[in-house]
């Protein structure tokens, strides 16, 4: 019992355990998974006035994070939206990120290869940014650095979890592969798409394999990229190809395509690969005449000109050596995010297609919501394992996540077909949205915050 007092300060009321078992292995909160979302959660907990005295154990299976240096750009980047950036500002992480490097995106240009429909997203007069392109390793490094000053957080690396026991009424327990055991009031599953915590929760999950792979790479652009603050995405019949700017003359590639195509592209010699990539953005695909006519009629009705605003993405000059990598794409949603004393955040709860750049933003949104809801609950005298409190987190996030996920899934389905009526439908839809500011603003608010 006295070892528990080591973690507590006497002046605050603490849950003093009086079990006979080794209480020094008991924590208020255990976070399973030290990736982007898990570490941000640990950091946010340590910054919250009400929760900062609760002791937290962060378990990560990999060795201690190698750190980040501003050398060659990493090939895994994320498009963070304004809500995420605000969140980072609140937990003191944004300073470190902005001191290193990041690329604000002022405009997104999206178009359909099977028709002439296109849409651009930007704020009026480019007064605000629509997204920020930041390397994942830089975010992780910044959060870990901020965690160094968090007195209530303990990080354990090389801690591969063997099993979790969720049946305990007030405490949950975690067993590591090395045999060590820990218990906690609240267990957070931040352990990614194949979450062990979620599997033990025995909840239902809906999964859908897209039969696509995402190919990433770091690219050097041709000289005329201007200030390269536009993100480009073209929907090809095989999947969307996107260029996300990294700096004035470098961009990151995210190309979602068939597994065969992805493997082939990955193994092509560099110059052939660059040719294929440049072709992908400009190659003309057969256009259905009916669709083209329909779009022209729409132009007349809405008094718009879908051709004049057409810009073209910068030409790619070369691909950075060894920066090409592939990962599988799929959709997953857990039927429940919580149980008494257990909660899922990030990819452990949901997984989506990268076409809208929302995946990790959803995870950070989960973290922000969970910390707020837990703080409110604890303020009102609830324990950390209180089911009512966790159910509020689940409800708030379902209300936010499900429409977005269904929307993105719907777009993926819609754009993976070359069936003319669908091409017509999506082209008209895209063009209408482009020319209807209220509609466009609705989408922008939801995705970009």
């Amino acid at each position, binding site marked *: 019992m006295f070892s528990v007092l080591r973690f507590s300060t006497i002046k605050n009321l603490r849950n003093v355990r009086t079990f006979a078992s080794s209480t020094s292995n008991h924590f208020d909160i255990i976070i399973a998974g030290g990736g982007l979302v898990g570490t941000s959660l640990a950091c946010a907990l340590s910054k919250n006035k009400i929760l900062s005295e609760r002791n937290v154990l962060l378990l990560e299976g990999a060795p201690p994070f190698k750190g980040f240096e501003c050398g060659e750009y990493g090939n895994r980047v994320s498009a963070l939206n304004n809500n995420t950036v605000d969140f980072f500002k609140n937990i003191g992480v944004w300073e470190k990120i902005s001191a290193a490097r990041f690329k604000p995106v002022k405009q997104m240009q999206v178009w359909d290869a099977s028709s002439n429909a296109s849409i651009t997203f930007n704020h009026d007069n480019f007064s605000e940014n629509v997204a920020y392109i930041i390397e994942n390793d830089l975010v992780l490094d910044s959060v870990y650095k901020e965690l160094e000053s968090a007195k209530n957080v303990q990080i354990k690396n090389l801690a591969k979890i063997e099993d979790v026991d969720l049946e305990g009424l007030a405490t949950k327990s975690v067993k590591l592969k090395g045999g060590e055991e820990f218990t906690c009031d609240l267990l957070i599953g931040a352990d990614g798409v194949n979450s062990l915590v979620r599997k033990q929760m025995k909840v239902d999950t809906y999964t859908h394999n897209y039969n696509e792979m995402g190919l990433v790479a770091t690219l050097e652009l041709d000289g005329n990229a201007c200030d390269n603050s536009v993100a480009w995405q073209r929907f090809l019949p095989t999947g969307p190809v996107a260029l996300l700017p990294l700096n004035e003359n470098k961009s990151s590639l995210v190309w979602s395509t068939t597994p065969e195509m992805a493997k082939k592209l990955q193994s092509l010699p560099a110059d052939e690969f660059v040719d294929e990539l440049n072709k992908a953005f400009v190659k003309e695909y057969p256009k259905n005449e009916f669709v083209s006519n329909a779009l022209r009629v729409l132009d007349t009705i809405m008094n718009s000109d879908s051709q004049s605003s057409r810009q073209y993405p910068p030409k790619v000059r070369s691909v950075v050596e060894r920066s090409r990598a592939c990962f599988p794409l799929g959709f997953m949603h857990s039927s429940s995010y919580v149980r008494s004393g257990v909660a899922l955040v990030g990819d452990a709860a949901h997984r989506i297609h990268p076409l809208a750049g929302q995946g990790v933003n959803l995870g950070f949104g989960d973290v922000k919501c969970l910390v707020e809801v837990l703080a409110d609950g604890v303020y009102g005298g*609830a324990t950390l394992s209180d089911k009512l409190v966790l159910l509020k987190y689940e409800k708030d996030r379902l209300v936010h996540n499900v429409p977005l996920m269904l929307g993105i899934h719907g777009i993926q389905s819609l754009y993976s077909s070359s069936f003319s009526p669908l091409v017509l439908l999506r082209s008209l839809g895209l063009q209408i949205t482009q020319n209807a500011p209220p509609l466009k603003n609705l989408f922008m608010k939801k995705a970009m915050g």
Partner: protein
Amino acid sequence: MMSSTGEENGIKHFNKWLGSFWWPEDRPNGLQIMNKVRVPFIKEAILENENRGPNDNLQGIKILDAGCGGGILAEDLARTGAQIVGIDMAEEVIKEAQTHLKLKSKELESSITYKLESIESHQEKNNGKYDAVVSSEVIEHIDVNEVEDFVKSCVEAVKPGGAVIITTVNKTFFAWWNLVVGAEYWSKRIPKGTHFYNRMVPAQTLIGYLEKSGCTIKYSKGFAFDFNVTRCDWSDNLDYFYAVFAVKNK
């Protein structure tokens, strides 16, 4: 919970609930759901009254829970740091409160004391002793003629300048429809015969009793359940449940 000379129906009714005041973990009852709203209300009121910051806790504060029932409010209040004395007149219910504390919430044992006694006899021995007196969802269960004395006894027990916080149900059709018809008969979330229209207390009446006992009303706030008693939130009127925060004049 009732005057020592008062009628027994209410006590008998609550004693029949033996063992069921607290519902199983995965089906919290109305009072447990209500904690999400009434504990922050009580905490904020006392913090303000004791000139503590909004992020502070209630360490060192002595609170009397008059009509504590099974201890649902007392336990969550204890987690804010305060020392709670809970009194009730239904013997089986006090026993259940003590059992729950010992078995499920052992860490709060040093913060909560339960006593089987009436508010009158308790305040005689503890006149002006408490920093705050709380009576939540009690006065709508006692005889209409005894509410004024009950409120007066609550005020006697608190120190001059201390907080008196009472939550109850307003005497309106809306409250009756939701609570008696909805919760007792329709969804059966509460046993039949728990609430009666003629025992519900209109807000103005309660405010009158508090002022007559020597208090100044600080503010009141209304809250409500949805029809199925699954969640509880603040509302912009006092038509259903309401909470009053008053301070005993010095």
